[in-house]
């Protein structure tokens, strides 16, 4: 049973076709990463799934009672808004103190309860956002470029935290990322987006797809080489991939 299913989704924003004919789904406990160049509709896809953007075509189905935790790419809190971490975590619903402590622990942000949101460092801020998303006990966690503004050790440790969440809590995770090497190692499936789904499947399949290489070119050679080396067998049998391996759309 898929948590979220998109079939033939199209989104027009102000006369601009941001997404067209997107078929996509995510299952329980899966980690799926969306990659794509700037303006390829990655954020639009996430916003459509959380309900912030109405699709102009196609059907969006959410499993009954699905709880989504959302970590936005950026959240600018106006300096005139006094807000402690604890108060932020209690928005919009109040939670019990032990739950808050547990969420902060899972997000790797222990002990920040009484700090002001605007005084947090970039890494702490992202982790608090993650903790807030976790408080709902979500079935599906959606993260939009969760490591924006973090340095490499910071983002590596955040990604480790995210993987840990899946194994601890069984949460399905859908994220947008531009850090291809991380994407390739941590995801069960990768969706390559450029206004439409141009390619999807296991990381190895996507990495070897010509559409993907056309989009990401030579800058990612290192990361791709690693995968081509390890999983060379995949693209020899390209035509008969089973469903869970995914498929590449060569049209």
């Amino acid at each position: 049973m898929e948590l979220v299913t998109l079939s033939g989704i199209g989104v027009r924003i102000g006369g601009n076709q941001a997404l067209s004919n997107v078929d996509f789904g995510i299952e329980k406990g899966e980690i799926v990463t969306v990659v794509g160049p700037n303006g390829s509709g990655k954020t639009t896809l996430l916003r459509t799934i959380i309900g912030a953007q109405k699709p102009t075509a196609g059907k969006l189905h959410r499993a009954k009672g699905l709880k989504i935790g959302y970590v936005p790419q950026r959240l600018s809190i106006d300096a005139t808004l006094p807000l402690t971490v604890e108060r932020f975590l209690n928005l919009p619903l109040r939670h019990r103190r032990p739950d808050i402590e547990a969420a902060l622990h899972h997000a790797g942000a222990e002990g920040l309860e009484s700090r002001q949101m605007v005084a947090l460092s970039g890494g702490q801020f992202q982790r608090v956002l993650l903790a807030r998303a976790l408080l709902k006990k979500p079935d599906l966690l959606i993260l939009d470029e969760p490591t924006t503004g973090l340095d490499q050790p910071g983002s590596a440790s955040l990604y480790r935290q995210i993987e840990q969440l899946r194994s601890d809590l069984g949460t399905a995770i859908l994220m947008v990322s531009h850090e291809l090497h991380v994407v390739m190692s941590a995801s069960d499936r990768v969706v390559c987006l450029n206004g439409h789904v141009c390619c999807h499947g296991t990381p190895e399949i996507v990495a070897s797809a010509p559409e993907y290489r056309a989009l990401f070119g030579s800058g990612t050679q290192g990361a791709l080489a690693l995968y081509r080396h390890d999983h060379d067998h995949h693209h020899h049998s390209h035509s008969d991939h089973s469903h869970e391996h995914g498929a590449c759309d060569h049209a």
Partner: protein
Amino acid sequence: MLDDFLVRATLAGLGVALAAAPLGCFVVWRRMAYFGDATAHAAILGVALSLALSTSVFTGALAVALMMAFAVSALSGRGYAMDTLLGVLAHSALAFGLVAVSFLKGVRVDLNAYLFGDILAVGQSDLAVIWIGAALVVALVTWRWSALLTSTLSPDLAYASGIDPKREQLVLTLGLAIVVAVAIKVVGALLIVALLIIPAASARPLSRTPESMAVIAALIGGTAAILGLRASFLWDTPAGPTIVCVAAVIFLATNTVTRLKRR
């Protein structure tokens, strides 16, 4: 007790300050100060219309303030930046209001009273309107508080929590329209925004949570109303502006003290 004009004026000022405080916080957090201006200026047009149609000033001001609020919501995101849009709407509404007033032959309109308010002329029925309006606004904001706050932080976070930020924006706009309509007699169209923003801005350095900021803003607004009225009585200064002056002095004080403490 309500026979004394100074008591009535004080109660009117307290009512407006109470309703303006939580709304003012949102106006500050959402950077929509101009929105208050637009609504307040439009209310002048409402005053003109209500005199022409011989309805109560409150009804006319409320109707036009609401129309303005809906117009801004509908027009936003269609190519003009919000400040441009509000600038166009606010000043044209004010201009149309002033022109409309000039057509009212035979009706003596003291425009000054609506631009600057006349808190000392507040009657018992005005007082009832102000307090009912204030109670409504406080109830509305309290009821929607969490949803409003979440939408203020980020519309997308609100959507993900099943809150429609557009509906919350409408709630806020509705509250603003009510406050403007009840306050126009007290402080006038030009000073309403001051009562929204200055107490909230003065409360900011003293607050650690959004709730405490709203409560402290209400206390500061109330203090400004009481002290301002006393001062205007003692020195025979115009009441509305004196209240705003006191609020401005409090703003200066809280911000200076906090800055000195931090050193």
